[in-house]
């Protein structure tokens, strides 16, 4: 779809700024339909997503392997910038994807791990157990997910790990108000 030409664009100049308006270049894709229209694009997309769900366990396994490899590298060579970033990105992807893949507790734990990596003033001084507990819990949740009785256990586990991580972060950041503010701020992630 072509963008608007320069002559369509209206610019109003003010003392400190310009306001630029243009005819909506995407207006042609909007179509008025009858209220009784039965088309349901969101429902269709949800069905398509559900049809992918058979692959989610395998995808999640790939994600946790990446996390595990990143942590092994950190244990071997320490928190270099590259290894720190790899560990963070692996955890961050699980934080974003795991709920979609059917592992919401793993997403909560990965978020907690991301917060530790992001807000600990010195990663070398963070007790290694804090990392291993998070990573082992994510691995266990993914491996044990098929057992129905493990769901409430994983939810409880994620809550406790988050509490331990938050207490640690609040303590080590007590003199860093900008971090403390972020740590204590509520998440904007949608809750299903």
């Amino acid at each position: 779809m072509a963008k608007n030409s320069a002559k369509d664009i209206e610019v109003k100049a003010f003392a400190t700024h310009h306001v630029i308006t243009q005819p909506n270049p995407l207006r042609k894709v909007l179509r008025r339909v009858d209220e009784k229209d039965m088309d349901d694009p969101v429902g269709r997309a949800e069905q398509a997503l559900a049809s992918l769900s058979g692959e989610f366990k395998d995808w999640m396994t790939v994600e946790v392997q990446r996390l595990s490899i990143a942590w092994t590298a950190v244990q071997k060579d320490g928190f270099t910038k590259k290894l720190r970033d790899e560990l963070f990105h692996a955890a961050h992807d699980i934080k974003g994807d795991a709920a979609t893949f059917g592992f919401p507790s793993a997403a909560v734990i990965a978020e907690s791990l991301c917060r530790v990596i992001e807000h600990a003033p010195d990663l070398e001084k963070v007790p290694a157990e804090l990392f291993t507990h998070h990573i082992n819990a994510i691995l266990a949740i993914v491996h044990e997910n098929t057992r129905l009785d493990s769901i409430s256990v994983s939810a409880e586990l994620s809550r406790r790990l988050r509490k331990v991580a938050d207490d640690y972060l609040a303590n080590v950041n007590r003199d860093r108000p900008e971090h403390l503010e972020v740590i204590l701020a509520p998440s904007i992630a949608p809750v299903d």
Partner: protein
Amino acid sequence: MFRIDFNKLRFLVCDDNPHMRRILRTLLHSFGAREVYEAEDGATALEMYSHYVPDIVITDWAMPIFDGLELAQMIRQPESKGNPYAPIIMLTGHSEKRRVTVARDAGVTEFLAKPISAKGLYQRILNVVANPRPFIKTKTYFGPDRRRNTNSAYMGPERRVGEKHEVLQQPSLLDKARSTI
């Protein structure tokens, strides 16, 4: 009631995670989109942006080479030969309020926190198609108007200078005090 003809829209999806790209592609195709281009890093996305001229960009934040924030900043270059006005939807695992502010200040049009849902994505696309905001250019910012609501009574330090509401007179503290006596 309005529907979007997705088959007339061209999307550019940028995410380094192949699983998330697959999910996005699946959702967009299910909505009816035919043209969905994919990039796995910001540099490739910028190249594809110039080449394919997408109508809507959906980008992750954390990516190698340069990230989604930098991609947004590079697209929002008012003097660039490409289209600096395309809607940018930031789809990210970052879920802190300050991140929304940073993304907004980089020129991102809509912010969508993961986990992704079909409804959330559809609503963001509907919003950028049906309710585009004017663009604002200042010394330090070029992008969609960051103020979604107009408050003509606003008198704070970030009030824009030169617009109608600039001439609104704020009652002095003395006048206020008198009126309450």
